[in-house]
Every structure is written in structure tokens, then in C-alpha cells.
């Protein structure tokens, strides 16, 4: 059952990613991106990180869905959102770079001994089991990752400020 779940999620993730790349209309591509994020959250849940999966679903998939579903119609009011496919001139070299990346990564993964294949709940440490995981994550974020968390929140604040500044109406001098 776990194997079947993995392969179903993998096919969904890859199919949604491919659809995002090759669908013509930006809105359809945005739907595909949100589907890929939902499948990615499913993959995180499959890896026994249920709390993180829920956080990904609510923040990344939900946030991206909100931003794209509300942002794209607003953008289309400002100007035409042209349909676009991968550029023919660039596709060849981009394809070669992407395939080379995948082949080399696969080769490295296939020849590396990772030493473990057990991802069952029994193999998890106490910190990753059930509610302990949420507590441990909270402690990590408020402890050794506090500075990084503040930096991330600062980044979001800067993003909001820059977004507002970029779209200020120009005033007559």
C-alpha cells in the first residue's frame, strides 16, 4: 500500500509539474502549480512529517493558490496575460541542461550507499513521533533557528513593502 501511495503521488507530482511547464495559459499553469504543491505536501506526509505537510498545504499551496488565483485576474486587468509556451530557441539547450542534471543526479544516487531503507514509524526517533514532532519543531524554531525565523519573517515584510512600493501610483511632480 505504501509503495502504491508513493508511486501515485510521484506520478501526480511529475504530471502536474509537466503540465505547469507546457500548458499554454498562465491561469491553467497556475492551477497545475497548485496541484503540484498539493502532491508535494502529500509526499511530505508520506515521509511521516504530517505536521509539516499540513503547514505546506495551508501556507504554500493555499498561499500560492490565493496569490495566483487573485493576482492573475488582477494582473489581467492591467494588461493582457499572453499565453506562452517554452521558447523554441531556448527549449533545446534548456532540455539538454535539465536532462543532464537529472542523469548526473540519478547516477550519483544510484552509486551512493545511503545505508538505510527503513522509513517506518518504528525507525523514527522520539522527536519525530506524533505530537512530539510539533513540540520539537516549535522548540527548534524558537531556539537554534530563531534568528533564521526572524530573517525569514523580515524577508516577507520586505517583500510586502517592495510589492506596495512597486505599484505606487506615480504622482505628478
Amino acid at each position: 500500500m505504501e509503495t502504491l501511495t508513493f508511486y501515485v503521488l510521484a506520478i501526480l507530482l511529475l504530471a502536474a509539474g509537466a503540465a505547469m511547464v507546457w500548458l499554454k495559459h498562465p491561469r491553467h499553469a497556475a492551477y497545475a502549480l497548485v496541484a503540484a504543491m498539493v502532491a508535494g505536501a502529500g509526499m511530505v506526509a508520506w515521509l511521516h512529517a504530517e505536521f509539516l505537510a499540513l503547514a505546506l498545504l495551508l501556507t504554500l499551496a493555499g498561499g500560492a493558490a490565493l496569490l495566483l488565483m487573485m493576482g492573475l485576474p488582477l494582473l489581467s486587468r492591467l494588461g493582457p496575460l499572453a499565453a506562452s509556451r517554452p521558447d523554441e530557441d531556448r527549449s533545446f539547450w534548456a532540455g539538454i541542461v535539465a536532462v543532464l542534471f537529472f542523469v548526473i543526479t540519478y547516477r550519483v544516487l544510484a552509486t551512493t550507499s545511503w545505508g538505510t531503507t527503513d522509513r517506518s514509524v518504528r525507525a523514527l526517533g522520539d522527536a519525530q513521533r506524533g505530537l512530539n514532532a510539533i513540540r520539537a519543531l516549535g522548540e527548534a524554531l524558537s531556539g537554534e533557528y530563531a534568528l533564521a525565523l526572524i530573517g525569514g519573517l523580515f524577508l516577507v515584510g520586505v517583500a510586502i513593502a517592495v510589492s506596495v512600493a512597486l505599484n505606487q501610483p506615480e504622482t505628478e511632480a
Partner: protein
Amino acid sequence: MLPLLQGPAQGFALPIIQSPLGLPHVLTLAAGVFALGLFAVLAHRNLLRILMGLELMLLAAMINLVAFTTYLHPEGLHGHAITLLLVLAALAQLGIGLALGAALLRRAQAPESPAPELPETDPLNVERYDDLKW
């Protein structure tokens, strides 16, 4: 010959697929998703599509981090904490990208548009703006 290409000849065998489900499977999947995002970033000229490709690459990185934590460091949650921070970065990037798109669309509508001779082309095409080309 490059070290990566050396080793016993394996023909068309796919050792990861044939082995029991484990960390290499998840990492291979993440590499595939990352490659799709990389292709989107390199092949598209539309700013929104490039942004979506970047989001896909970030998603692959997050799956990698969680997989490494689950399989290799089950006693800690460092990968999970970094993943949550990556989510913040991804949302900030998406917000800035959409705001940049809105600003470019407004600029394209302005009479002093940078490429008025190409009115029918995509206003979010990075080729129209010298400062966005690489």
C-alpha cells in the same frame, strides 16, 4: 573520463527502480521535479512562468530536506525547520514576482513603453526589458 561516468557498465538497467523503496526513490523524484522547474526557468521567457518554475524547484528542495531528515536523521528535525523557513522565502518570492509583473504590465501600458514597436508581444516577456535579461 569523469568519475561520475565510470564504474561497471549497467546498460539500461535502472538500479534505483529495481531496489526496495527508499531514500534514493524520493531523491530521484525530487531531482525530476527540480529538472522540470529548471527547464521552465531556462526555456520560458514569460516572467510569471519563470516564477512558477522557481516555485517548483523550491518544492523539490523541500522534499529533499524532509526525506534526508526522515531517513538519515530521525532523531532531529533540522530539515523540517529549514523547510518551514523555505516556505517563507517561497511566499515572499511569489509576492514580489506578482508585484513585479503588475509593475511591468503598468509600464507596458504607459505611452513611453520601452518597446512600443512590439505592441502585440507579451508585456511580461523578459526580452522586452534589458534590465531583466541574462
